[in-house]
């Protein structure tokens, strides 16, 4: 068996022997270099660097051996874990890691008009849901995960859709005054509701849907259907934990901001 550059389905039995995936390393290195370039001349690099590194680390863990290899063609549940890490967790951390100077540059750019359109919350939520559903359709998974380029496409789609999804919540640019904490919380809550359909499809399905995982050499004694049910539960519970954590943080920030505003001394009336 030759060297693989990206994790995808294999017809060979699973082995706990480490395998290199140079495409994954290159992908993460390119992103890391992009962050270094974005942070040039930034005074807040230290503060943001931690978030960016956490995002890159999450992405690397999700894409490389063993999670990437297991999710690439052995276990639907691990494939779902990859989805949570690549589409939900890593994008939020990466956006938090973008230095202020990069946001400022974007704010001054004429491309801002385009970004204002494609990062509109209705657009981002729709794109995220379409990608979520499309990349979990059995025919799409079975055809794309069979090749390294197809598997790469799914991962890139997840990351792109995740970045778009979190953009209105985290990114300060473009400024959306009316999209304050209550609407952001509502936006995230809607996402928790919308993933119910694929969750139910996977968890309560009467048969296993994905040939790529059903016909994969077995890992442990888990059946294909149990594996799929765990994948559905992970989508709902794992996704819920990430989204509700974000909702909770937003709520406390909103509460603290209002409380701080309420503590301000009231200016005496002027006659």
């Amino acid at each position, binding site marked *: 068996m030759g060297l693989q550059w990206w994790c995808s389905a294999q*017809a*060979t*039995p699973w082995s706990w022997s480490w395998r290199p995936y140079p495409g994954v390393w290159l992908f993460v290195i390119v992103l890391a270099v992009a962050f270094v370039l974005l942070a040039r001349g930034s005074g807040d690099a230290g503060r943001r660097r931690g978030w960016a590194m956490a995002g890159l680390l999450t992405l690397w863990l999700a894409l490389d051996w063993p999670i990437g290899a297991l999710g690439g063609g052995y276990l639907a549940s691990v494939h779902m874990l990859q989805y949570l890490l690549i589409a939900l967790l890593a994008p939020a951390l990466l956006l938090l890691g973008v230095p202020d100077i990069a946001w400022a*540059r*974007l704010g*001054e*750019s*004429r*491309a801002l008009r*385009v*970004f204002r359109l494609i990062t509109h919350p209705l657009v981002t939520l729709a794109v995220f849901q379409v990608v979520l559903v499309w990349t979990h359709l059995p*025919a*799409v998974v*079975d*055809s*794309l995960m*069979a090749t390294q*380029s*197809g598997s790469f*496409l799914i991962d*890139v*789609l997840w990351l*792109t859709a995740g970045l778009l999804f979190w953009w209105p919540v985290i990114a300060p640019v473009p400024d959306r005054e009316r999209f304050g904490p209550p609407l952001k919380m509502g936006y995230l809550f809607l996402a928790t509701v919308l993933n119910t359909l694929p969750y139910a499809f996977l968890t309560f399905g*009467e*048969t*296993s849907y994905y*040939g790529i995982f*059903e*016909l*994969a*050499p*077995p890992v442990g*004694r888990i*059946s*294909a*259907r149990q594996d799929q049910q765990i994948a559905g539960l992970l989508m709902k519970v794992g996704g819920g934990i990430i989204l509700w954590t974000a909702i909770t943080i937003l709520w406390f920030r909103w509460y603290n901001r209002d409380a701080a505003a309420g503590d301000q001394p009231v200016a005496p009336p002027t006659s």
Partner: protein
Amino acid sequence: MIQLRWARLAAAVIATVVVASAAGCNVEPQERRDAEIRARETGWRGIVLENPPKKPSFVLEAADGRPFDFRAETDGYTTFLFFGYTSCPDVCPVHMASLAAVRRDLPVELQRSMKVVFVTTDPERDTPERIHSWLANFDPDFVGLTGSKAVVDSIQLSLGLPPSIYEDPDENGFYIVGHASQVLAFSPDGSIRVIYPFGTRQSDWIHDIPKLAAAAD
């Protein structure tokens, strides 16, 4: 300059998504297409043999040590016959796991009218006890049989299957056994024989088993 960079980045992302989406939409696994074409043309997801030879008659040792007369003991049952070995890393456990999962999902009367018979192609390593405990991982009702390699090879040849081949052992003494990867299915009266190659999905078995079971009526 900055505007140009963003525009290039956006164009690259859009182009990648469009090209790859088009590729993803048009690709269907070949096995799926074949099974669906067969289902449209013949009504079966498996491959139905037009003039199958009679259900074979052979006696091998069952995992509990008693002799098992294949034709007599499977008469009146929808029977699935598979030649494999318990150290098999891929095809054998997938087939057994699929058949076990499918059997669990069938109505009780179809479960009772179905027998899965596993014949080892590796009698040196596969003792009756080992076959019994391995099959119990999937379904304790599955029947495991063993016999000499020469006898098992002759049964396979009589069914149109190639005899099994032992590859050279590795440094740990582990060796792979090359064997036919298809499951043979017989209707209860033995009149229909269907072949299920590796790649057959659980949904394919579920589609065909009621038809196979009804073929005796």
